[in-house]
Each structure stands twice: as structure tokens, then as C-alpha cells.
């Protein structure tokens, strides 16, 4: 005789294998891997953003007749993209076999290390970009009428550049250099803020779970 669903339900669960609970010892495993995969994806997009952005800047510089400044900016930004790629490689080497907590902790350490390293690198990159941009524009072909106009209207010139503007740019570059770490940290937070918050939240939860 055909069994009713009620009987199937009752009899089926009498078997010992029907209700085996999975272990709850690695609750965050998949979550933590997802979190880092998301970060890696965004990081890759960011690298491509640098490559594409600097290439467009280079094309713009060439069209404006600032080949040297454009080339220097391109080389510098490609170097930044290359180091970011190397950082990404080191992130991929994180041991996924360790516990979720250790895994997320090492990810957090990687972010801190990376932010620190980039903060140091941007100490030179930020001012260099500002100066290259400024000199590039100033000496570009497209800017030559303006250059002549400035030369006619003032005697405050240094190497053909307006002295006070140049001074202001140098001070700006110096400030950017001095605050490079803070600026870079804010930059990182603006791009990866959501993921970093999730990471902090997950770590805090896991620390509470361990108590």
C-alpha cells in the first residue's frame, strides 16, 4: 500500500543517518573566502583602472604636446600598477587552509602592510604626479599662448614659470607628500570601505565567538 506523506516523514526520520548535524567549527570559512575574493576582484578592477586612466592621460598629454611629462606619468603609474599586481599575487598566496579567523587576520595584516607600503610609495608618487602635471601643462604646446601672456604681464618668473604659482604647486606637492599615508588610507577606505567594515565586523564577531 502506498505510504502517506505523514508516514514517510515519520518512518524516514527513524533511520539514524537522517538527522546528522554538520560540524559548526568553521562557521566563517566560506564567508571569509567570499570576502577576500570580492576584495581581489575590486583590486583587479582598480589595477585596470590605473592602467586605463594613465593611458588616457598619456594620450591626452601627447595630444596637448606634453610628450615627456605624459610619458613620465605613464611609466610611473604603470610601475604603481605593476607593484599592485605583485601585491595581489602575494594576497593570492595567503593560506586558505588555515582557520577562518587566522585567514581573515592574515588578510587584515596584508591590507595594513600594503597600505603602509603604498603610503610610503605615494610619498613620492603624489608630488611627482602634481609636478609632472603642472610642468607638463605649462610647457605643453597647447599652453604656449598662455605662457606668452603670463610672460608679458609679469616679471615674477622662474625658468619661464610664474613664480608664485610654482611656489604654491611645490607647497601643495610637499603637503601631499607629508600626508601621503593619510590620503592613501582615505583613498583605500573610499574604494574598499564596505569590505573593510565587513572584515572588521567578521573579526569582532569571531573574537566574540571564541570567548
Amino acid at each position, binding site marked *: 500500500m502506498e505510504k502517506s*506523506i*505523514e508516514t514517510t516523514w515519520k*518512518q*524516514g526520520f527513524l533511520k539514524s543517518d537522517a538527522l546528522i548535524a*554538520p560540524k*559548526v567549527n568553521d562557521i566563517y570559512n566560506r564567508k571569509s573566502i567570499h570576502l577576500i575574493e570580492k576584495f581581489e576582484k575590486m583590486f583587479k578592477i582598480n589595477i585596470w583602472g590605473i592602467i586605463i586612466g594613465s593611458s588616457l592621460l598619456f594620450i591626452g598629454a601627447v595630444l596637448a604636446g606634453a610628450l615627456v611629462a605624459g610619458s613620465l606619468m605613464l611609466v610611473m603609474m604603470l610601475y604603481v600598477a605593476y607593484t599592485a599586481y605583485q601585491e595581489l599575487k602575494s594576497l593570492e598566496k595567503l593560506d586558505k587552509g588555515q582557520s577562518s579567523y587566522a585567514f581573515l587576520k592574515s588578510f587584515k595584516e596584508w591590507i595594513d602592510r600594503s597600505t603602509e607600503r603604498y603610503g610610503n610609495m605615494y610619498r613620492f608618487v603624489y608630488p611627482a604626479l602634481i609636478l609632472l602635471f603642472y610642468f607638463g601643462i605649462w610647457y605643453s604646446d597647447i599652453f604656449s599662448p598662455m605662457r606668452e601672456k603670463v610672460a608679458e604681464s609679469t616679471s615674477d618668473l622662474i625658468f619661464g614659470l610664474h613664480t608664485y604659482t610654482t611656489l604654491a604647486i611645490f607647497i601643495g606637492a610637499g603637503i601631499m607628500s607629508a600626508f601621503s599615508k593619510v590620503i592613501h588610507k582615505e583613498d583605500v577606505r573610499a574604494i574598499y570601505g564596505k569590505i573593510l567594515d565587513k572584515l572588521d565586523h567578521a573579526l569582532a564577531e569571531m573574537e566574540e565567538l571564541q570567548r
Partner: protein
Amino acid sequence: MSSDFYSASILPYAPIIIKICRAYTDTQEDFEDYYQEVCLQIWKSRHNFQGQSEWSTWVYRLSLNVSMTLLKKKKNTPQHTGSEFIPEELSEDSKAFSDESLEQLFQAIRKLSEVDRGIILLYLEEKSYQEIADIMGTNPNHIGVKIKRIKERLKKLLDGKIN
């Protein structure tokens, strides 16, 4: 989550969680994910339990809510697993239950809507219409009719009359 809390407040109710999670998942991997998420949510929301109902009722409600939410999320996320290409013999290995009839029943339940799955699970767990309505947040007057319809659909699914 302390092992004390798990042993005292979750493990005795694990059968409830297992049955619900099985009804909302097709694979062992998803089942373990759902189970763990339910346990985590029970632990995280433990302070919200005010003792107005039985702890088991609360576990039912929470397990259903978490499972339905995860299933919705999964439906909205494109899958890249290519599971549709898994050969028949491989999917046979991933059967949740050795009891053939029970396995078929769960396969049929998984074809129901999210809410219908919850209602029939609670019915099979011998919950009263009032309890089902309380857990599902519906009107108890309609539960009887609803269960009758779900059972008819399940029967058709089990007989292979519909897919």
C-alpha cells in the same frame, strides 16, 4: 559561540534545523552553509528571545526565516557552478537521506514555493494550525485549506504527474 550554548540550546533542536535546511537546499554544501548560518543567527539573536513562545517555536521561526532569506539571495545571485551539467550518477551520491521515500518526499518539497515548504514542514512536524500560523505569521483560518492544497500538489509531484 560557546560550546555550552551550542550543546544546550541548539543541539537538542538540531533535528528541526536539519529538516528545514534540507527542504531549502539541493546540495550537501548548501545544506551545511544554511545549517551553520541558522546556528549563527540563533546565537546572535539569542537576546531577542523573550520567552513569549517555546524555544523550539522560536528555533522553527528563525530557521525558516534564515533559510527563506538565503534561498532568495541564492536565486538572485547568478550561479557559476555549472551544476546543471552534473552527471546523474554524481548527483545520486549527494542524496541527503538513505531512505528512498524520504528522499523523494524532500525532492518534491523542494519544488514547492518557499512559503509552502515552510507550511508543510510545520504540518509534518505535527504543529497545530495556530502554531503554524504563529510561526509563519499568517491567518490560522486559511492554514487548513492551504495544507490540503499543498498535500495534493505533493502527491502529484510524487506520482510524477507534474514537475
